[in-house]
């Protein structure tokens, strides 16, 4: 068993009176792909937002590389090495592709490193390299998703949080995106992936957690969950 990168311990998050996360426990090992699956409103995105500091948990702790990060502001968490590609992509539509990428490296100061990561990201997404000067809002949905991932990589994260990268994309593009996610993982980046497309997610993940109404109801190796009768019925369409 390898080293733990991220640990969520009894994590609770409230939106006002709504109790969105009700004691989530997760262990994520370095170098793996872990997926969160579950229905709408189960708390998948909320979990990611709590990890990246966009939401402050009301109870419980988040340990990244053994250090507690749940009290830190979002900008400090980015500096620790966690990048978040938010749901709905969250690209900056009126800025150019180039500017979007540079904002991904916002928390960094090492010019040389940023330049080499820019080259690496563009090699991963050659389509973006052709459109550096273009306004990001004019990209197609798939290209915008590529930009969101490339931008997150510019932070040189050790943990990459991806929120529904397949949302609204044609099946072919989804294939491309998932191939690249695997490629990023092969280079040593640990990935926490939230997906509606459970079949796709389970097929590339090492571990999986199933979330329902703010609680983890099942977890285990992704391959086992793929063949699990209950999961098949609930999330994989029989």
């Amino acid at each position: 068993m390898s080293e733990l990168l991220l640990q969520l311990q009894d994590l609770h998050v409230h939106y006002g009176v709504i109790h969105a996360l009700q004691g989530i426990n997760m262990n994520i090992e370095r170098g793996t792909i872990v997926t969160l699956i579950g229905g709408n409103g189960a708390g998948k995105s909320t979990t990611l937002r709590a990890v990246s500091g966009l939401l402050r948990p009301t109870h419980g702790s988040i340990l990244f590389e053994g250090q507690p990060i749940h009290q830190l502001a979002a900008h400090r968490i980015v500096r620790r090495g966690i990048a978040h590609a938010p749901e709905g992509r969250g690209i900056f539509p009126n800025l150019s592709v180039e500017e979007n990428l540079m904002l991904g490296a916002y928390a960094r100061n090492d010019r040389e490193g940023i330049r080499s990561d820019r080259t690496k990201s563009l090699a991963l997404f050659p389509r973006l390299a052709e459109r550096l000067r273009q306004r990001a809002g004019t990209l197609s949905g798939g290209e915008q998703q590529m930009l969101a991932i490339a931008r997150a990589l510019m932070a040189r994260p050790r943990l990459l949080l991806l929120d529904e990268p397949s949302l609204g994309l044609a099946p072919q593009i989804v294939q491309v995106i998932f191939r690249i996610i695997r490629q990023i993982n092969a280079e040593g980046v640990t990935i926490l992936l939230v997906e509606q497309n459970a079949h796709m997610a389970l097929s590339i993940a090492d571990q999986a957690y199933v979330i329902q109404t703010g609680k983890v109801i099942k977890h285990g190796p992704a391959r086992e969950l793929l063949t699990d009768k209950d999961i098949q019925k609930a999330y994989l369409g029989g």
Partner: protein
Amino acid sequence: MIRSIFAPLMVLLIAIGVHGLVGRYDDGYWINQLTIIGIAIILAVSLNIVNGFTGQFSIGHAGFLSLGGYLAGSLLYYGSVMFFQTRPEPGFFSFTQPFDRMDPTIVWWGIGDLFFLCVCLSAGLFAAVAGLIVGLPSLRLRGDYLAIVTVGFGEIVRILIESSQRQVPLSRLNRADGWDLVTGWGSAMGFNYIPKFGSLFWVYLFVGITILTAIRLKYSTHGRAYLSIREDEIAAEAMGVRSTRYKIQAFVISAFFAGIAGALTASSQGTINATELAFMKSLEIVVIVVLGGMGSVSGAVLAAVVLTYLPELLQAETFARYRLILYALVLIFVMILRPRGLMGTREVWDVFRRRRGVQG
């Protein structure tokens, strides 16, 4: 090294050029027009840093303008007597008369010039501090809510100034105590007899500095963080941008230049009146920014020139009666034809670069 001083040097040369050339041949009309236009440019470009760059909606810019103007006015009026016992000698740069009527013995850099520079900077800092005080609690608000707070701020400034004491006449100045001077901001009568240091040189020096600051900001890592807040605040936070802090910073920078614009207004007209710098004045600046294009520095400059000079142009006899209607029509048509403003979020030079890019 050369690159870093090139732009500031250009600003200085342009300011001296405008001052020397226009001052040389003009009898006062163009000096006056160019001063008003220059001040409008400073106001529009500085408001654009908040409204255009960070995408927050502030309609209280006239409040900062008033604060800077009154501080500068009282420093120039009371201060010149206290520091120099007389009105300080303006030098070449602060001389607002045409050259042929200028005293040939005049010095190039009078002690008054230095004093005036300090007054401008104090006016800017004063407004910037006010910006910080307003910004700290209110910039956690978004959209309409922030707009309402800034309107409130502008009105509070106006009412406070209007309820201040009468201005102390110079003849009674030696009998006045410090408190009279601090509270003697001229009530609703306005603050008058301000020494006229605000020459074209100073106006265009600060126009240049404002534009340069805005452009440098826009194309820096720092400025990109401002733009990202406008585009998507949550995504910006996820990138590690501290949005509240940057919004406050933008607000303070913007207020600083509005304060300087106030100092220039007070010292070029010789008078300043908070009643004229009410909500409508703030709205005028917002209109310039929206018309120019949110976030476009060159758009703001362009719109400031057009919208400041247009009413003047329409003064011509044939139009005079329909002046306000024509002004409104221009606004309506621009917004229909170019709903994102004259320049959108782009700059004049982006348009040219794009053309080149397509060909090449």
